C-alpha cells in the first residue's frame, strides 16, 4: 500500500492485521495509517470490517496477526487503557457518558483531581479548570456544572470529544459520529474536526454518509470483506469512486423466476413510527414475492418491522392485511392475523435461551396444541421434530437448550416456530446475520419455498449479496424514508448503495 502521508512517519499504523471471531474472518491482512493533522475516512459496507479495524486500533480487540505501530515503533495494545495512554481514543457511536453526572464530572471521571491526601476529596476548582480548557478546545460554551443528560445529542458528542482531548488524545477515532445528529449539529461537528486537524490531531472518521466524507476527509480508506479495497486521495474523492471501492465485486445472481406477485397481502400507507421521521413510508407486499428493505444501519428498517409487528407504537399511517384494516398493538394481534416477525436480535428477542428447542418452537403455538390449558406433550414433540426436520436443525434432540446451539441453528429454531404458526406475511430482520454459510443457504431455500407456497416475505438485510439473490423488489431506505424502489431487473449493488447513501438528490421512480 502506498504511503500517502508524504513520507513522514505515520502517527498510528496498522500493518497487515487479521482478526477472526469464532472462526469467521472479520479482517484479513488489512493495513491503515494516519499522520499528524490528517482526517482519514474509513468506508465500507456493513460487515466490511471497519469496526473491527477501529477496535483493534483502539486496543479493544487484539489482532491475530500483523502489528500496530505508534510513531513508527511497534506496540501491543492490551486494552483501551493502553491505547488511551498512547493518545488513541475511540468515541463510540452510542456515547459513553453518564447522564446523571455533570459535564465536569464526566470529563474527569476515573481520574478526578483530589486534595486532602488520603481523604481523596474532589478538587472542584481543578476539575472546573480542566473542563473549561477542554470545552474551549471544542468550542462548546456550556456551564461545566450542567448535567450531561440535559444536553442535546450534538453537545454530548462535543463533551465526549472534549474528554478525549483532555486525555491528550493525538488520534481520535470517531464511529459514525453524525448518525444521529441534525444538520446543524453535523455542520458544527465538522467545523470542530477541521479545527482539531489544524491543531495537529489525527482523526479517523467512520461514516456511511458519503457527502460528509467528501467534505471532511483528506484521504479515504475503503474496506471490503475484511480487506483493503483501495484508497482515495483528497482530489480523487467522489461519490462514484467511493461506491465503486466499497462494492467492487460482480455477483453471480442465482436465478429464481421473478414472481409477478399474487394478491396484495400487506399494504402500508404513510406509516410513521417516530414523530421525527420526515415523511411516512408506503409500500406493499404481494403473495409469493420477496420484498427486501435495504439501507444502512440506522436507516429505520428495523423500526418499520417492529411497528408492523406491534412492538413499537405507530404514530400515524394505515396498514391493510389482505385488504382489511389492521391496527398493530401487540405481537399477539399481529400473530393472530398471520403477520410474523423474525427479530434482528435473536438472543434477546427471538429465543428463550435457557428453554429447550421444543419449548422455543411451541411457545407462540401453545394454544393449538393444548386442551384445557394443558400442553399435549406428544403434539408438542411432533411440532418440534417437524421443525427440526424441515429446517435441518442440527441437534442431539428437541430438549437441548436453544442457548447451546450455533447461531445458524438458533435462527432456524426461530424460523421453525413461525413455520408452525402458518405465516401469511413473514418479516425477516437480518435473518442470516452471524449465520454460517451452510445455514445461510438452508435459510434461503426455506424463504424460496415459503414464497412458492404463496407467503409474502418482507426481508430486511444489510447483506447486499443476499438482497440481490432473493428479492423480487427492493425498497431502499435512507434516513427513515424510502429513497427509492428497485425492480429485480434494475438491481445492482451500486444502485442500492447509491440510494442507501443518499447519493441521488431525487427519488427514482419505481
Amino acid at each position, binding site marked *: 500500500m502506498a504511503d500517502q502521508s508524504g513520507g513522514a512517519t505515520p502517527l498510528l499504523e496498522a500493518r497487515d492485521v487479521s482478526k477472526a471471531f469464532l472462526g469467521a474472518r472479520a479482517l484479513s491482512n488489512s493495513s491503515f495509517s494516519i499522520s499528524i493533522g490528517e482526517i482519514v475516512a474509513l468506508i465500507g459496507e456493513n460487515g466490511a470490517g471497519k469496526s473491527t479495524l477501529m477496535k483493534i486500533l483502539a486496543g479493544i480487540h487484539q489482532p491475530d496477526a500483523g502489528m500496530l505501530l505508534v510513531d513508527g515503533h511497534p506496540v501491543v495494545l492490551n486494552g483501551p487503557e493502553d491505547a488511551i495512554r498512547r493518545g488513541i481514543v475511540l468515541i463510540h457511536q452510542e456515547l459513553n457518558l453518564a447522564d446523571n453526572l455533570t459535564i465536569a464530572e464526566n470529563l474527569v471521571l476515573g481520574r478526578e483531581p483530589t486534595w486532602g491526601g488520603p481523604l481523596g476529596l474532589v478538587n472542584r476548582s481543578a476539575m472546573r479548570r480542566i473542563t473549561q480548557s477542554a470545552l474551549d478546545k471544542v468550542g462548546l460554551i456550556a456551564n461545566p456544572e450542567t448535567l450531561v443528560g440535559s444536553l442535546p445529542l450534538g453537545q454530548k458528542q462535543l463533551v465526549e470529544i472534549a474528554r478525549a482531548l483532555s486525555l491528550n488524545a493525538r488520534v481520535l477515532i470517531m464511529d459514525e459520529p453524525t448518525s444521529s445528529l441534525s444538520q446543524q449539529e453535523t455542520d458544527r461537528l465538522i467545523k470542530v474536526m477541521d479545527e482539531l486537524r489544524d491543531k495537529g490531531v489525527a482523526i479517523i472518521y467512520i461514516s456511511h454518509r458519503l457527502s460528509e466524507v467528501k467534505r471532511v476527509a483528506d484521504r479515504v480508506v475503503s474496506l471490503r470483506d475484511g480487506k483493503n479495497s483501495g484508497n482515495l486521495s483528497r482530489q480523487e474523492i467522489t461519490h462514484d469512486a467511493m461506491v465503486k471501492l466499497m462494492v467492487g465485486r460482480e455477483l453471480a445472481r442465482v436465478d429464481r423466476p421473478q414472481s409477478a406477485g399474487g394478491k396484495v397481502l400487506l399494504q402500508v400507507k404513510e406509516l410513521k413510527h417516530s414523530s421525527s421521521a420526515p415523511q411516512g413510508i408506503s409500500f406493499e407486499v404481494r403473495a409469493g414475492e420477496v420484498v427486501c428493505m435495504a439501507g444502512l444501519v440506522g436507516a429505520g428498517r428495523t423500526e418499520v418491522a417492529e411497528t408492523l409487528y406491534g412492538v413499537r407504537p405507530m404514530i400515524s399511517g394505515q396498514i391493510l392485511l389482505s385488504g382489511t384494516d389492521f391496527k398493530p398493538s401487540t*405481537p399477539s394481534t399481529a400473530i393472530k392475523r398471520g403477520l410474523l416477525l423474525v427479530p434482528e436480535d435473536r438472543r434477546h428477542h427471538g429465543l*428463550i435461551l435457557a428453554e429447550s428447542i421444543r419449548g422455543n418452537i411451541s411457545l407462540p403455538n401453545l394454544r393449538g396444541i393444548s386442551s384445557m390449558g394443558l400442553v399435549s406433550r406428544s403434539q408438542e414433540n411432533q411440532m418440534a421434530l417437524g421443525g427440526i426436520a424441515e429446517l435441518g436443525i442440527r441437534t442431539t434432540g428437541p430438549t437441548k437448550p436453544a442457548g447451546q446451539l450455533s447461531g445458524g441453528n438458533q435462527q432456524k429454531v426461530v424460523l421453525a416456530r413461525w413455520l408452525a404458526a402458518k405465516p401469511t406475511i413473514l418479516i425477516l430482520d437480518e435473518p442470516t446475520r452471524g449465520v454460517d454459510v451452510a445455514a445461510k443457504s438452508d435459510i434461503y431455500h426455506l424463504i424460496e419455498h415459503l414464497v412458492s407456497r404463496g407467503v409474502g416475505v418482507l426481508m430486511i438485510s444489510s447483506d447486499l449479496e443476499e438482497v440481490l439473490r432473493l428479492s423480487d423488489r427492493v425498497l431502499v431506505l435512507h434516513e427513515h424514508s424510502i429513497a427509492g424502489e428497485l425492480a429485480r431487473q434494475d438491481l445492482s449493488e451500486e444502485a442500492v448503495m447509491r440510494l442507501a447513501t443518499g447519493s441521488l438528490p431525487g427519488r427514482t421512480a419505481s
Partner: protein
Amino acid sequence: MNRVLGVFAVVAIIYFGLMSSDPQARSPENHQNLERRIGEWGILTLGVGFVILTGGIDLSIGSVVCLSAVSFGLILENNGPPLLAFVAILSMGALIGLSHGLLITRLNLQPFIVTLCGLFIYRGLAQLLTQVRFDVLSEGLTNGWPEGTRLLRDSSRNIGLAKPENLSWLATLQKGNLPLGEWTGIVWLDIPNPLVLFMLLGLISFVALECGAFGRRIHALGYNEQAARYAGINTAAHKIACYVICSTLAALGGILFLVKVPSAAPASAGNWYELYAITGAVLGGFSLRGGEGSILGLALGTAILPLLRSLVIFAGIPSDLEFMVIGVALLLGTMADELLRRGSFGRARQAG
C-alpha cells in the same frame, strides 16, 4: 432436577439433625405441628413463587394475611354469614393482587416498591378497621348522625373469632387431619389438613406450571420478557394473574391464621410472613431474577424454615438466636446454590 435433589438433601439433613436432638422431637405431636406449619406457610410460599417466577416480588403478603384475618373476624363479629365472608375475603385478596399487577404492568412501577407500599397500607388499614364501631356506623347510616357521634375507638384491638360453632367446616380445614392414619393404622399418615390443602394447591400449581401453557408462558416471560413479548405472549396479563394468585393465597392464609389463633392482633398478625414465604421459595431453588424454579423444590424449601425453628427449640439453642440461625442457613443455602450453579454452567460451557 439436580437442584431439587440438593434441597431434598438439605431438608433430610436438618430433619435427621432434629430427630436426633431430642426424643420429644420425634413425637407424633411435633410432626403434626411441623406439618401444619409447613402447610400454612406453604400456601403463602406457593403464591409468592408465582410472582418470583415472573421476576417480581411481593412484600405485602404478611400485611394481606393480617388484613384478611382482621376483616374476616370483623365480618363474623357483625353477623356476616361465614361462607360469604370466606368468598369476600378471597375476592379482596384477588383485588389487591389485581391492583399490584396493574400498577406494575401499566404504570411500570417496580414490584418491590408497589408491594412495599402495600405492606404498610394493608397493615394500617387493618389497624383502622379494628377501631371502627360498626354498630354506630350502621345506626348512623339508617337513622342519621346525632351530635358527637364517634365512629372510631381510641385504639386498635385484637379481633377474635366470633361464634366458632358456625365454622365447623373451616375449623376442620384448619385443625382437622386427613384420617388416613385412622384408616390404615399408621400414625404418621394423619396429615393435618393445612398440609393437605397445600399439597392440593401445590399439585394444581404443578400441573399449571409444568404441564400447562400458562406455566410455559410464565417461565418464558420471567426468563426473558422481551423474547416472550416477541413470541406473542401477553406478558402484562400473565404477570397480573400471578400477583392475583399470590394475594388470593395470602388472603386464604389470613383466614386460616384467624381460625387457628383465634385472635389476631392487627399490629403483629402475619409479621414477617412475606419474608418466610420468599425465603422458602428461594431455598427451594426459585431465582429472584425470574424464570427459574419448580414446585417440588418450593415444597421442600418451605419445609426448611419450620424444621430449623423446631431444631432451634429442641437442640436447646437459645430462642433469641432463632433469627440468626435462619439467616445463616439462608446465606449458606444461596452460597452453595451459586457455587453449584457455577460448576454446572462451567461444565455446560465446556461441553458446548
